[in-house]
């Protein structure tokens, strides 16, 4: 079906589920699954439109780490060099999440168990980015799913 782009296919699946499947379901568990699926489809549409959130997050962390390395280069040259090295290493895979994993682990190694001020700054940077991405995840939150569990 080359004439339809991915977003159009997703939208038609979404409409079909909403129009034909949801009203026909009397089983609560099945209904919650469909409602959750609709949220997941919305997230996929979003990714098609604005890109993979992992790629964005990697870019933000890389820029933040580069800035941090430059700002501490005179007082903590060793730590700055370690930050540079962590940025240079590339993961084996090419997917954004391969980079997230490799970079996340390398940077965590640098700040874990280290009390030096630059390590605290690095930890704060990683934590801030974790909180930022968390905020973006609201799109696939399905209240009915949570209600069925609490």
């Amino acid at each position: 079906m080359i004439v339809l782009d991915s977003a159009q296919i997703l939208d038609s699946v979404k409409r079909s589920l909403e129009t034909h499947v949801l009203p026909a379901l009397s089983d609560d568990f099945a209904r919650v699954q469909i409602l959750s699926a609709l949220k997941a489809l919305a997230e996929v549409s979003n990714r098609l439109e604005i890109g993979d959130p992992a790629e964005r997050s990697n870019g933000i962390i890389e820029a933040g780490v580069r800035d941090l390395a430059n700002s501490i280069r005179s007082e903590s040259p060793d730590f700055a060099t370690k930050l540079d090295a962590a940025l240079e290493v590339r993961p084996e895979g090419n997917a954004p999440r391969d980079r997230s994993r490799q970079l996340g682990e390398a940077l965590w190694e640098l700040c874990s168990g280290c009390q030096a001020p630059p390590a605290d700054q690095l930890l704060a940077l990683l934590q801030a980015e974790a909180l930022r991405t968390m905020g973006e995840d609201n799109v696939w939150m399905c209240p009915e799913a949570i209600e069925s569990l609490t």
Partner: protein
Amino acid sequence: MAEVTGNLALPLEKALKNNAPQLGIDRVLSIERLTSGLSSQSYCVETETADGPTRLVMRVEPEHGVIPPYDIAREYRLLGEIHEAGLPTPGVVHLEEDPSIVGGRFMLMTFVEGVIYRNMDARLKADPALLSRMQEQFIEMLARIHETPQHVLSNYTTGEEAARAEVAVCRNRLMKTELLPSPIIRHALDFLDEHAPPAQCLALLHGDYRLPNLMWKEDTISGVLDWELARVGDPLSDLAFTQTIGRGLCSIEGELAARYAERTGIEIDERRLLYYRLLEMVKGTIIGLAGAYDLAQGGDDLRLLSVARIAAAGQAIMGSLEAQLEALLEA
């Protein structure tokens, strides 16, 4: 998550006739999924025996899920022991070790009659007297759980040891299910390891003590369910759970906490309580985030997406809890 699919009534019937003849089951009439659980999946099993129809609950150990490692045999032994000790838990009637019958090891339990109230329940919102009676019972039942002896779960000699053991369980779970590095959770685990507090006493903990895990009959608790997170530790940990992940109409805080303290003689120590609130947040967040891992591994319950989202939000609270605890430690 292990799923009972297709018509399994016949294989189950055959297995029960062979492996559990003491149950006297002639026919398995139906198997119906009970929808609420996120981890071990529960099913209502209608059967026919020489004495007439019976209804059992089948709890199936998942192949993978959000609270690894699973050990339904341990849950079976614990339930058997605490039921004998007088707690209103389902009676266990059979443990099936053969995972091929329904896609996982399973246990059969008696069906507990009653209703479950959820935190959004309009009946509780509309009837303050009913809510107050339920809160009283909620506290009384937790006190009874904390007094119940058991010999199934690992015991510890100090509060520090019990707390560190739970931190280690969390760390292990995170290691197994973390799809991307979680700096906030990893840091919180290190913090909890470093600041494990002593305990006034150690007790059996339910670990998931909240309204949806209780059955009620005529305003009385007829069943305490879902013991897969039970462990031994500081009783304040269960109170902290009701204030965080299990927060709702029966959160044990303020006057309710004072009543629990009066009933049990266990002091409500703010520092320990704060420590366990952080630990419960970390634990709940790890369990929630494991929902994403479960889906990546082939799980099919899409509610896990929302659970993972809610859990991720827990990370925002961890920093503030750590700061509060640090301030208390320095005071």
